[in-house]
């Protein structure tokens, strides 16, 4: 199963094919699990909204012993803690990361230079 890495431009047209890609990759390692299509869709859609038209997004999925780890990186402004808190408290916002957190056992946001990466992981089914 190894690793699946995708560098893509910020287009929502690539969300559905990325899900197919992820599901085929999980299947090829016999670990079909429909949570990852949703998690990737939410994180990539967020990354797209913080990326300029000529920018790019990185998606890396890897099996690490009994866990699947997904990293989604963008080169936007990074997380604004106040915004994140407001979104989480709002009734019409914050559902994206809410879903991601509900479907994973580890969630981390990392900022390195101008690169923002969300790293999530969850055990294989």
């Amino acid at each position: 199963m190894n690793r699946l890495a995708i560098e893509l431009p910020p287009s929502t047209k690539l969300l559905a094919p990325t899900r197919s890609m992820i599901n085929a990759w999980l299947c090829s390692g016999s670990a079909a699990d429909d949570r990852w299509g949703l998690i990737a869709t939410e994180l990539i859609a967020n990354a797209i909204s913080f990326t300029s038209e000529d920018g790019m997004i990185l998606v890396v999925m890897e099996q690490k012993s009994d866990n699947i780890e997904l990293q989604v990186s963008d080169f936007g402004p990074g997380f604004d803690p106040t915004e994140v808190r407001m979104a989480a408290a709002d009734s019409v916002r914050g559902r994206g990361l809410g879903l991601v957190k509900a479907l994973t056992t580890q969630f981390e946001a990392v900022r390195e230079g101008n690169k923002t990466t969300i790293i999530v992981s969850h055990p294989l089914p």
Partner: protein
Amino acid sequence: MHITISPLNDGAIDVSLQGEIDADNCAQIGEHLLTPGVESDSTVALDLSELSFIDSSGISELLRVRDAFDSAGGSLVIVNPSPAVRRVLEITGVLSTFGLS
């Protein structure tokens, strides 16, 4: 995503969404349902049995469309969500908003 709209004779409408809904195509729901061709005080039953995927932007769009019918004296409920869709409705806490339990 594919959308099928079947007006019944008593002002009720059966709508069925098929396929996948994400940030790329979720706006189509409102485009098809919040138009002059669909009475805004209709009673809409939205069949999601053949919808295999929905994300948070799809949920937001469904809530927006539901609110529009609601405030015009109509209503929108979800019937028969597929397991994947039910899971997302459950986690986001909007099952009851759409008449499900």
